[in-house]
């Protein structure tokens, strides 16, 4: 049992332990410094903390990793958010002449929240998630990751579990960090297909020509649709669910085929076959229909499965987003990176909680002590640091920090490559 029965009331006791012995400060600092290429990049970054009793403090900034550590260990924040890199130290923003304190750069971020799918999932609602609807996140990650890499050319994407009901994407490329509000909004809109709120019934409308991005996204959706929607979400298994799907069809087709379609869930037991029948009936009627309905099946699949992202989160350069490796106070889960190489195997319920990893801290694994002593002598690490490194390594957090390290290594290699290219161009030796 990996949850180890997390109790939010224990947070005040667990957080100090977490921040003193487990939180990966050096990797965190390494990330946000981005190789020290831009001066004061870390110094001018805004953090915000939510403390006990919902006290919220903004414009926190730190000049060194040490300062960050000390402050976090002192404040023991329940939540940590990361904001933008500003023109001045955020902690001194009040001393700056009004108008000159500006958000300059920030990672391009995306927030996919399961509650945005409440109108199309039948298994859960609101803050609840289960293994059935988690597939929506899998689909979202596949579609967005491909598009951000292939279409937009971004390379350094960090996908993170939000801790409760969604995922975040941090696009860390230099080009992404420098994007304007207009550019971020354009990217988010390019990636948006599901439009409309409570009042809109049909949220996806396709027209000719179908953009390659849409076809690419559809092939991902089509892969998951039968198992996820037809089986898992019991689409077309009850009168209500059939009605809901039918409401997405064009009026004139609906009128003509209503009788046939409504009986679908009775005459056909196999949900997969029901879908095929639905398609067949509509195709047949469509031949006689005048307008629309050309892409109805694609539109239905997209409405039930396509990623729903909050454009406002992505648009703002100064928007604050929950930090990776922060704790989710309600679930206790750590916001850990998601390994895209094993995406289908990711289980949000297996993500370590703060109580679990604190527990694991006190249980040394056999033979570990000796092994580490030898390693320390080789690397010349001091006992304090050694203990710290040993600490997270013996917990379930280890593999996630390793993932994070690999992500940071890739960025470092990329930076080195860029510098070589630049110096080649300038013919420096």
């Amino acid at each position, binding site marked *: 049992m990996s949850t180890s029965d997390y109790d939010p009331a224990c947070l005040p006791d667990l957080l100090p332990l977490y921040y003193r012995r487990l939180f990966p400060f050096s990797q965190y600092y390494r990330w946000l410094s981005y190789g020290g290429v831009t001066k004061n990049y870390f110094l001018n970054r805004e953090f915000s903390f939510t403390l006990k009793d919902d006290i919220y403090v903004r414009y926190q900034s730190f000049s060194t990793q040490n300062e960050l550590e000390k402050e976090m260990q002192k404040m023991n924040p329940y939540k940590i958010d990361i904001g933008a890199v500003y023109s001045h130290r955020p902690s001194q923003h009040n001393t700056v002449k009004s108008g000159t304190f500006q958000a300059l750069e920030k990672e391009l971020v995306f927030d996919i929240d399961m509650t945005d799918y409440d109108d199309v999932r039948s298994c859960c609602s609101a803050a609840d998630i289960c293994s059935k609807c988690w597939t929506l996140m899998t689909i979202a990650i596949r579609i967005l990751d491909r598009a951000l890499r*292939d*279409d*937009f*050319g*971004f390379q350094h994407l960090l996908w993170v579990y939000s801790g409760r009901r969604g995922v975040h994407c941090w696009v860390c490329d230099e*080009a992404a960090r420098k*994007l*304007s509000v*207009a*550019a971020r*909004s*354009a*990217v988010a*809109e*390019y990636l948006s297909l599901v439009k409309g709120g409570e009042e809109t019934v049909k949220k996806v409308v396709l027209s000719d020509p179908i*953009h*390659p*991005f*849409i076809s690419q996204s559809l092939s991902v959706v089509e892969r998951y649709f039968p198992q996820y929607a037809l089986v898992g979400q019991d689409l077309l298994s009850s009168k209500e669910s059939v009605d809901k799907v039918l409401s997405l069809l064009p009026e004139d087709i609906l009128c003509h085929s209503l009788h046939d379609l409504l009986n679908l869930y009775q005459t056909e037991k196999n949900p997969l076959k029901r879908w095929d029948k639905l398609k067949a009936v509509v195709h047949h009627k469509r031949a006689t229909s005048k307008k629309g309905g050309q892409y109805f099946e694609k539109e239905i699949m997209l409405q039930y499965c396509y990623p729903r992202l909050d454009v406002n989160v992505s648009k703002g350069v100064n928007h604050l987003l929950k930090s990776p490796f922060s704790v989710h106070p309600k679930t206790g889960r750590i916001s850990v990176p998601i390994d895209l190489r094993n995406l289908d195997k990711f289980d949000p319920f297996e993500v370590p909680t703060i109580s679990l990893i604190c527990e694991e801290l006190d249980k040394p694994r056999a033979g570990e002590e000796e092994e580490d002593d030898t390693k320390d002598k080789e690397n010349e690490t001091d006992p304090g640091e050694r203990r710290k490194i040993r600490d997270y390594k013996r917990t379930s957090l280890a593999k996630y920090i390793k993932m994070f390290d690999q992500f940071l290594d890739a960025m470092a290699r990329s930076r080195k490559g860029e510098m070589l290219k630049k110096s080649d161009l300038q013919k420096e030796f």
Partner: protein
Amino acid sequence: MQFTGRRRKLTVHPQNELYGHCLQLYGQPPLENISLSEFETFAVERLKLLKTVENLGVSFVKMSEQYSKKLHAEISGLNFPFRPEKRRKDHISHFILRLAYCQTEDLRRWFIQQEMDLFRHRFTDLLPKDLLSMYHFTRISSRYWKRLMLISTFALVQVPFQDALDLVRTRKVFLQGGYAYIPHQDIVTIVLNDFRTRLSKALALTARSLPAVQSDERLQPLLNHLSHAYVGQDYSIQKNIGKVSLEQIDALSAKSFPLCMRQLHKALRDSHHLRHGGRMQYGLFLKGIGLTLEQALQFWRSEFIRGKVDADKFDKAYAYSIRHMFGKEGKRTDYTPYSCMKVILSNPPSQGDYHGCPFRHSDPELLKQKLQSYKLSPSGIIQILDLVKGMHYQLACQKYFELTHNIEDAGFSLNHPNQYFMESQKLLSGGKDIKKEVEMPQKVQENAAANGAITLFTSENLINFQT
């Protein structure tokens, strides 16, 4: 200022390299010497071209086939085709007009709009292979053209996606690896945006350096006149002089006067007085419709003495200026009636004034009320107000013409109050050929007035022209 002799000298670039492509972005100013007469000719001709662009844009849907055909014809007619010799003219004339049109927001806006329309027309005329040669030339100055690909006859331009946000946002373009691949016909929007931004910045910069240019006395009057220039008929010579009687004026003001003159006439009748700006604008208009000096004197006198002015004071103070208007006093220049552009752009009215263009200078609410009091249809009023909001003042007046004359289409492009009068009279008299011949000044006369035409520099001095 350098005086280098009579012949033109090309200083930096050999002509075929500079003008090797057919469409220019006007990135660099010309660096050669030209004569004053060429300076003026180029400027006036380009101004005519831009006014033509404006008029065609008003009469036809922009970029429609009709529009394109007509504009193409006008461009060659005005001597601006694509041939290399003419590209130099295109280049130089553009920069001269920058000097004239950088000074106020209104002028800049007008200039940028016409230059953009002209550019768009020329751009869409380009064949993909021309685009390729243009790319090679502008590659150094334009950051847009990352790569131009030619796939048989279909041209695509590869730009970073950040430079094509509108196309990206609406998924109207193919993206790969962070680049947008834009088909030739869609490139124009992006290039136009770039063109507008650059020109706008350049005009702002030019305005700052203008004092230095204006200190040259040979240029200053010319540049001033250019920005107020009206290059159509000037209604200064009318063959129907004396055909309008004073008794007719009240009726005519409601039937055939444009709104500005109707407003002035009413103000004059109501307050028995008009201030200087109003007297000039209205007085010259009346001259243009055919009033003789004697009629004018009688008209103004009879009105003014109903007010606070007695006969003596009128003869002393006001009669002189009326005679002046007719060229009978002082310099004896025969002033020409104001064009719409002049009315709209110069001498805005202040408190107590009734001159100017009501579509431009009146509060929209008051304008609406006035139009309602004239019993114009509500839908018509809305159309007029929309045009006003879009700053199409002359179009709004045209609409007023159409509504008051009960016709669908005015059939002409309005740019002069006397033109309005003439067209109205033509329409009301059943289109009979009214025997007034208005002479078109081909080149500007030497006794041309300061307010309408361009003074000719007869000097042969050379100037070194640099922005």
